[in-house]
């Protein structure tokens, strides 16, 4: 396939990208809404929320393709799922931002809502790209919006540091990725993932192309904040508004996993689940295990609630990667999707709760969060729910997600190198879960147990509390995972 064929999408095929096209239009509208007569940041926020809601509905109804025709963007059932996920995340993020006592009245809050939609659009495109160039463009779109969202508190030095770190890391990751892509193109003569796969299958330079492919993978590692591409996480999560952190830690991950799954399936079409002897699944399993352990250990020594959540996001991404070590079965993808959904609600709940608590404590440092239960008992209770769920302790949704995921990891079999990897990875996940639980527990100890020194009066105001309540109810409801996992499996099958 040559570059020209990217532009050969027919109008009929364009309808496949309806949610993305709608979201692009909505994005432009939100951008100008603030400057229209009678408009303001509230108008643009409300409009952004409306756009996100419409996108959610469109994502459910839009059709998907199961036939690969070589186009640059080919949305399939997995893309559909990412669209739903990204719109849901945007709704939660914008709603929480609108209700946040600290953020809703800031001058930049209208732009914040717009940037959230930008990240969602980038995520959706990334999840449907089947061409190296399209992947890169989607990645850049996703990243540029994320940089804006991360450095959102423009004048604050911490935020500026976060934004800058993010941009530098992102730029380097993209550059390495692009470098890898140029080699892949040079060796296989194609940018289309499926054509690359065909070339490799016909006895192409399989060994030689592996290194460039790994370089392309750096972009995924960066988006998933896997070790060693995770160093931007803690600073960004600490520097940006908590609600944005909740968004940035979830939606780009879903997109990156969808992109990764597409890439693996298209480049290695002949591989079957539980294939023995292929080294990539083993690599994915071990790599995920290493990320899990490093993230969990690092989370244990942090003194700031948001940094703990940042390192835990690295650990969780590693855990999710491990499930691909049994290669890409429908069940494995459904388990991954369920884990991501639970992670969305738990992470949003945790960050919204922190947003509310920080309104009075002024900081997310553990020692300053002490005594939060006196000021906002319900918020602390919701935070406890979110953290217990993240720690994977029953009977909350986090446990069900961990259970479903582990089941798929261990299904890989009980013999051979792959079975050994699945065992090692499961042990790594479970041992890390103790370290992670200990880290979350320290947040809980500060907020729910410690007396604290300040005698701030109890805080009032619902604000974004209802978004928090929705997330908490979801964590309780999703505890009974099986119907949801079964539904995901059925819908992903098409």
């Amino acid at each position, binding site marked *: 396939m040559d570059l020209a064929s990217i532009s050969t999408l027919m109008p009929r095929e364009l309808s496949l990208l309806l949610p993305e096209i709608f979201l692009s239009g909505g994005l432009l509208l939100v951008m100008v809404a603030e400057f229209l007569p009678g408009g303001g940041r509230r108008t643009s926020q409300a409009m952004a929320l409306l756009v996100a809601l419409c996108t959610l509905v469109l994502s459910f109804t839009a059709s998907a393709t199961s036939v690969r025709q070589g186009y640059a963007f080919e949305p399939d059932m997995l893309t559909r799922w990412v669209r739903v996920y990204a719109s849901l995340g945007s709704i939660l993020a914008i709603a929480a931002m609108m209700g946040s006592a600290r953020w809703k009245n800031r001058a930049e809050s209208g732009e914040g809502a717009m940037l959230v939609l930008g990240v969602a659009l980038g995520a959706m495109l990334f999840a449907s790209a089947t061409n190296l160039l399209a992947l890169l463009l989607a990645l850049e779109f996703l990243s540029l919006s994320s940089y804006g969202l991360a450095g959102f508190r423009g004048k604050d030095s911490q935020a500026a540091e976060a934004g800058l770190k993010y941009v530098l890391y992102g730029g380097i990751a993209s550059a390495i990725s692009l470098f890898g892509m140029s080699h892949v193109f040079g060796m296989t003569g194609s940018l289309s993932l499926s054509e690359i796969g065909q070339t490799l299958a016909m006895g192409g330079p399989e060994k030689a192309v592996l290194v460039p492919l790994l370089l392309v993978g750096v972009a995924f590692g960066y988006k998933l904040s896997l070790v060693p591409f995770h160093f931007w996480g803690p600073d960004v999560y600490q520097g940006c508004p908590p609600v944005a952190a909740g968004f940035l830690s979830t939606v780009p991950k879903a997109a990156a996993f969808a992109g990764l799954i597409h890439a693996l399936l298209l480049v290695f079409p002949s591989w079957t689940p539980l294939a023995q002897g292929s080294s990539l699944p083993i690599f994915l399993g071990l790599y995920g295990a290493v990320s899990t352990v490093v993230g969990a250990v690092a989370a244990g020594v942090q003194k700031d609630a948001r940094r703990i959540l940042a390192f835990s996001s690295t650990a969780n991404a590693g855990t999710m990667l491990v499930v691909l070590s049994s290669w890409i079965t429908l069940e494995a993808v459904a388990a991954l999707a369920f884990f991501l959904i639970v992670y969305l609600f738990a992470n949003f709940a945790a960050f919204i709760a922190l947003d509310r608590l920080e309104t009075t404590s002024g900081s997310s440092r553990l020692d300053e969060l002490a005594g939060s239960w006196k000021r906002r008992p319900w918020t602390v209770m919701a935070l406890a729910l979110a953290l217990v769920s993240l720690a994977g*302790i029953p009977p909350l949704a986090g446990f069900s997600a961990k259970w479903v995921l582990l089941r798929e990891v*261990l299904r890989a079999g009980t013999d051979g190198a792959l079975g050994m990897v699945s065992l090692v990875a499961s042990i790594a996940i479970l*041992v890390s879960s103790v370290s992670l639980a200990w880290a979350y527990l320290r947040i809980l100890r500060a907020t*729910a147990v410690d007396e604290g020194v300040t005698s701030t009066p109890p805080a009032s105001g619902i604000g974004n509390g209802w978004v928090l309540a929705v997330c908490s109810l979801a964590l309780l409801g999703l505890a009974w995972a099986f119907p949801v996992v079964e539904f995901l499996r059925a819908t992903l099958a098409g």
Partner: protein
Amino acid sequence: MDAIILSVFFAVPLLGAALLGLLPNRDSLLRKVSIVLSLPILGVALALLALAVTRQDAGFLLRERIPLVPSLGIAWHVGIDGLSAALLALSGLIQFAAAMVSAPQGRSKLYHILVQLLFLGVHGTFLLLDAVFFYVFWEVMLVPMFFLIAIWGGAERKAAAVKFFVYTMGGSVPLLLAFFLLHFSVPSQGLMVMVRPAEVREQMAIGSQGEVMLYDLPVLRVDAEGNPTPFAAARMGDASLPDLYVPLARSFDLLHWKLLAPWWSQATVFGMALMPLAFWMMFVAFAVKIPAFPLHAWLPHAHVQAPTAISVVLAGILLKLGVYGLLRVVWPLFPGQVIDSATLLAALGAVAIVWGGFAALGQSDLKRLVAYSSISHMGFCTLGLAAANTQGLSGAAFQCVSHGLSASLLFLLVGALYERAHHRRVDGFGGITQIMPRFGAIFLFAAMLGAGLPGLAGFVGELSVLLGGWANPATQWAAFASASGVVLSAGYLLWTVQRVLYGPVRHEEHRSFKDLSSAELFATVPMVALSLLLGLWPSVLQNALGPVSASLSAHLGWVVGLR
């Protein structure tokens, strides 16, 4: 129907927690409601225990299996037999006593709600026969207990709570992994496994076609053509039965896993034998809870820091869950490993008994002393389990109940003393019995109970364990060494009694202490009466525990005989 009756044990704590949440925040009211909430549990559990005592067989009194996710082999499988009925009755009594003496300093609504959630976990663990739900309820206890110690405990409460949490969660990690290994080591097409005829007799139900059912599985025999056919219930009375089989699929059912015991001993994972791997992974989870040597380090710290009522719950019932887990989950699954490791397991028990006893001798803090004596007394449970014969197993179960009574009594009394004196130093008291005669009498009784005085409940369990241990050649020397534990416990408890209760009144300000209040008497006197009853008439409890233990012991012998 059975599941509906047993749902009392889930509904009362859940609805109780909701009710407590709605009530006005008044300490006395919340406490009264908590006391009332313990009564239905105690009542239903005692009724079931009475049923078990009169029936005197190893069968389940109530059991129901409701498949929830058949494709994954997950079912809501609840059941109660003599062992779980006895421990649930103990749990009800402990909950009642703990509610009587609960005195949270502030945030009392949260305190009472957390206690209800804690007992929800306890009840679920005793009742569930499905590994997934068993694990869920096992872990449900973790978070409430953490907060109960961390918020309402002593000066070092937060460190103690974290230690408790990390130990217990670390212990349960291999448990979950082992459950998965067991699940996946069964071939996906299922297995036919031979069953023990006596077990079929004990537990059988009759299906709609008049065929024999065992744990909701059809019992099959091989007919003349070599095909498996259902076995008619009418033929169960025959003098000689043919070899009987059940078809088993991948599941998480603990009773089905018990039937798979012959399979586990030959299955392999990753080229290694499954049995030792899974056995030790699961053993660690439960041994942390008991706590068996060398996984006991969290206990003294947690006990000293926990508030009185929570110490009572911890010693009275939570430690028993470890023994229960071994009896219900680990021992039935891996008889071969139990027999192979008997010497090592018995050594763990003996070390805990002797070392815990010496450690208790050296303590200057009363609560620490009782905590170490708990480690020592729970060592008898480990020893009884290691012996794996009827006497050893029933002794371990009996010891659970008697230690539940003695340790709870001691913690209640130490707590009462601390409330008056605001310290717990053994050498900081003297002549207390002159000031508080009722306290003195009950304290002396509790010490005698702990020391295993004949005629009291503590004697029965320990003697049974020692006899069982002596009868098994592999554990004989450990039983011999452990007998010294009885002397040690007499030593440290009587020495404590002497220093605290007798002699001249060393501190004049102690003369103002009031004797035990009516609430404290309500909490302690039932335990005193029960210990006396069980000591003088052990068969009241033994008739419930004995058949279950005998059946388990027979199962162990049968499975090992198949090797």
